[in-house]
């Protein structure tokens, strides 16, 4: 997706190439554009959100080479040669679908603004530790702020998901 002429007189744009959700992408960016800005405005990823610009709220979370980062604190030029995964693009698809279904059934989303990043963070946690318990998850999501749910149903959702995997229902 080519980016429209947005910056007035051309300053210092360069092409950055990286892997986004398993597909190679390229974008013409200026150094002072964060990965967050480029994902949202050039690459169509409004599932990655601006919440604070300080790395505190977590709504801008993406996976960078497989681990979670605040995309508001990474410049797009720094992503060149790396692998970026967004909430919409996380996988494997059957696991993500099952995790989303668990969030839905548990009522774990209210306004939904924190949800895509929250789910991606949980997914990453579970990939590292399939047997993560409720308190591990509580600790693991402590960098993702939610103002609506009080977190309890998010933890419930993870337990539903794990129960589903154990009984083999709801996945694949």
């Amino acid at each position: 997706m080519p980016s429209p002429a947005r910056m007035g007189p051309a300053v210092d744009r360069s092409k950055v190439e990286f892997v986004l959700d398993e597909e190679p992408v390229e974008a013409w960016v200026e150094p002072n554009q964060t990965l967050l800005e480029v994902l949202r405005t050039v690459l169509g990823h409004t599932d990655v959100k601006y919440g604070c610009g300080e790395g505190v709220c977590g709504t801008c979370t993406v996976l960078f080479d497989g681990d979670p980062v605040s995309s508001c604190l990474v410049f797009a030029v720094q992503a060149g040669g790396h692998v970026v995964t967004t909430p919409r693009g996380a996988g494997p698809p059957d696991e993500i679908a099952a995790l989303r279904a668990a969030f839905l059934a548990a009522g774990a989303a209210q306004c939904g603004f924190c949800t895509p990043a929250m789910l991606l963070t949980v997914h990453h946690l579970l990939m590292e530790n399939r047997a993560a318990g409720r308190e591990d998850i509580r600790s693991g999501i402590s960098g993702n702020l939610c103002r609506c749910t009080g977190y309890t149903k998010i933890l419930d959702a993870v337990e539903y998901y794990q129960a589903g995997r154990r009984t083999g229902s709801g996945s694949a």
Partner: protein
Amino acid sequence: MYPAPFDYVRAGSYQEAAQLLHDRGENAKLIAGGQSLVPMMNLRLARPELLIDINDVGRGAGPVLRDGWLHMPAVTRQRALERLPAVATHAPLFATAAAHTGNVRVRTRGTIGGNLAHADPSSELSCVAVATEAEVDVVGADGSRRIAATDLFITDLTTSLEQSEVIRSVEVPTRPARTGYGFAELARRAGEFAIVIAAAVVTLDELGSCQGVRLAFGGVGARIVDGSAMAAEHLVGVDPTPDRVVAAVAGTSGASSPRDDHQASAQYRSRLMAVLGSRALRDAIAGANGASGG
């Protein structure tokens, strides 16, 4: 909300980075993890004209034990410090401090070198660097040198590094067998800057007397407070009893003048130094006893 414009270059080595800093002067800054710098840039409070990206330098090289020192490349991620066996074995306070730093995203990007170079007196890693007598290996346009952590931190956000000097690695000395470690901090909520941090290292002799003690405090003032000398006065050469621990810590917190701000009063910080310092020392003593296998 949007950073001011800047030029961007990736350095292939620490030496190259140092040269670039030298050539471009005050308006150039290094970017490693960016977890301290980029928020300031997003707020437009920091406006470097050139960012020198050192994330690729020595890519893949991790901490290794060398000649009795744990050598940690500057761009070692805090996430790696949390997880790597080499750190857990030879510099466990760094693993603990890293685990208490920021949130999971901060730790994915944040580096040991970047954290120390930022010289935030509320930094857990800075605190344990002083507690463990770590040193930084530094390269500049004209050569290299080693700086002890205690000499690195001058004041709030200011190090003794020259403008073109770049931290290459953090070196942590290994300790004798009967050594234990303690760490305690109080933050107002998960992931936030700590109000007070205490880190302790205690080495015991075969009879259980204290052979050496290190004690450092973060979050208290403009720089990391090194309470080791005061603690040593009370503890070295004797059995480190709870009363002596309390006296050791009281001496330190009495001698420093903690800062007073909207997060916490000086009086509260003083009290926390006593409480957390005692907890850290007690854990270090217990650890040293346990480490001996006896």
